[in-house]
């Protein structure tokens, strides 16, 4: 029974790990023991919030970024208290570094509060593997020691897998100094491409940016609005994808006729996204990921209006060129000669660029994960990829499912790792709800 589990190891002290720890520590149980393990020097950052660039702002407004599911204004108040926002100035898209500070301070406060109780322990070290034992789990660390507990929760977030082929990741060690007038290519046209553009601007890069993706679609901007009200009783569940998409298109059309912005319809659906996903047959999920997700993403995952203005200006001036197509050949001389086949005309176009940045998205086959804990679980058959291979297979209660289909009572997961089951579980508004529910499930 997980109900008696008092000691819990959280593997990964990025945003989802900190949010989970915060929710668990709301329990009044004096015997609770939380161990949070993070390999980076700072807790609460992960990959998502480690950027120091002030132009890299949150893609969700401050009103939606509280760490606590039951206190949605927590981050907003934190900003107000520090003079980083003012009451009349909503919506605010805070720099991600500010958000990392918020989570860092939140954890500091918890650490101070729990000093007497000993309920929270932070370990700065890389985790190597999790092994179930007779009484719980053992997590092996890179320094040769190990920690034990009743159960472990994986909160390792997005994969840090090195970029593929000749492409490099923005800001990685391979991203060395560059002639500021040379063209560069970005693989991807989504929010990561936008981040790359902002980073290049900051560095004073002047060369052209050629952004390539299958469809060449740019994400939409946020606009202040009020999500429409829907009930689960209104939403068709469990149908095939085309039926659902038809229903949703009609719903947008009807609302637009009444003068309502499409964003308010997309956002009105958000509370039900997980339910919709979980009720779809496997075929609908697969079709969605293959064909519809790119369209969904640019409408659902939007950027701050100020950022959008900068990006569209760059597109109009020709500084950014959006190309719908696929890379068919890369030849490396002094620079890269890249052939791209257009999606629409099938014609080949050749680009000469000094660097290729990989911004092609964060969803990877989990069995090739660069995270050793995740990989070793899969290798030993203690975990398996979900049917779409976009994360780990977990139950609706966040329990890891082993290679033979057995549901683990001792190893659980939260955040992006669970996207095969929970669909959109990349952003704080969704992760905090998942963490609140899991805390209740584990501690009552």
């Amino acid at each position: 029974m997980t109900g008696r589990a008092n000691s819990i190891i959280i593997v990964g002290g990025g945003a989802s790990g900190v949010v989970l720890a915060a929710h668990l520590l709301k329990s009044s149980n004096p015997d609770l023991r939380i161990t949070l393990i993070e390999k980076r020097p700072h807790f609460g950052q992960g990959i998502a919030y480690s950027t120091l660039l002030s132009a890299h702002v949150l893609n969700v407004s401050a009103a939606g970024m509280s760490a606590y599911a039951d206190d949605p204004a927590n981050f907003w108040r934190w900003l107000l208290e520090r003079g980083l926002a003012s009451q009349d100035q909503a919506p605010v898209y805070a720099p991600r570094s500010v958000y990392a500070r918020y989570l860092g301070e939140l954890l500091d406060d918890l650490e101070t509060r729990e000093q007497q109780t000993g309920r929270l322990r932070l370990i700065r070290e890389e985790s190597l593997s999790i092994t179930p034992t007779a009484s719980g789990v053992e997590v092996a660390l890179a320094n040769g020691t190990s920690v034990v507990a009743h159960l472990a929760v994986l909160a390792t977030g997005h994969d840090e897998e090195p970029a593929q082929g000749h492409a490099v990741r923005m800001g990685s060690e391979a991203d060395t100094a560059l002639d500021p007038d040379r063209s560069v290519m970005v693989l991807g046209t989504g929010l990561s491409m936008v981040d790359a553009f902002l980073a290049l601007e900051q560095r004073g890069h002047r060369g052209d940016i050629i952004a390539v993706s299958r469809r060449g679609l740019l994400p939409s901007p946020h606009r202040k609005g009020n999500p429409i009200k829907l009930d689960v009783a209104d939403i068709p569940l469990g149908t095939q994808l085309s039926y659902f998409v038809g229903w949703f298109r009609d719903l947008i059309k009807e609302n637009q006729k009444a003068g309502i912005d499409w964003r308010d319809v997309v956002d009105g659906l958000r509370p039900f996204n997980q339910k919709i996903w979980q009720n779809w047959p496997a075929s609908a999920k697969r079709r969605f990921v293959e064909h519809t997700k790119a369209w969904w993403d640019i409408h659902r995952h939007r950027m701050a209006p100020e950022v959008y203005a900068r990006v569209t200006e760059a597109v109009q001036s020709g500084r950014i060129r959006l190309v719908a197509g696929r890379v068919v050949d890369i030849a490396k001389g002094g620079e890269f000669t890249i052939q791209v086949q257009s999606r629409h005309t099938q014609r080949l176009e050749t680009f000469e660029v000094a660097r290729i940045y990989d911004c092609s998205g964060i969803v990877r086959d989990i069995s090739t994960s660069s995270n050793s804990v995740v990989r070793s679980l899969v290798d030993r058959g203690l975990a398996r990829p979900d049917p779409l291979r976009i994360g780990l297979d977990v139950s609706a209660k966040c329990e890891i499912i082993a290679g033979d289909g057995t549901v683990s009572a001792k190893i659980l997961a939260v955040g992006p790792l669970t996207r095969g089951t929970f669909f959109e579980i990349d952003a704080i508004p969704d992760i905090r709800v998942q963490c609140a529910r899991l805390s209740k499930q584990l501690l009552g």
Partner: protein
Amino acid sequence: MLTKKGKYGLKALVHLARLPAGQLAFVNDIATGNNIPKKFLDAILGELRNAGFVQSRKGKDGGYRLARPADEIKVGHVVRVLDGPLAPIPCASRTQYQRCEDCNEATCQVRHLMLEVRQAIAEVLDQRSLAEMRDMATDDLPVAIKVQA
């Protein structure tokens, strides 16, 4: 409100759920076996096919079968496709809202309560699969007999 259309659709699906996996049923057999007008049933099965709950095959050996295992199709899924949003009265819906001639929806307490009722309806119908509904009839029979006795 479950309409006749919704009721017939569910009966047809239970009929299909009783067949061995993959076996097709003739529309005529479904219609006569469940007292459903054939023309109406054709239309209903067409809608269920569009939504991905049944598959059809044309021709002499043609007919309908479930597109997915009966335990994967929830009753609530089917009712929404055939009858629209789950709602005890037409004004208790967000997307297919129909105004009542005789009251003001903003202050109507009946509507407010019925909005709550529809959540309860969804909770029941989205938990129950076709397979459970199919097996339910026989399970309940002894109880019904006991009650009468």
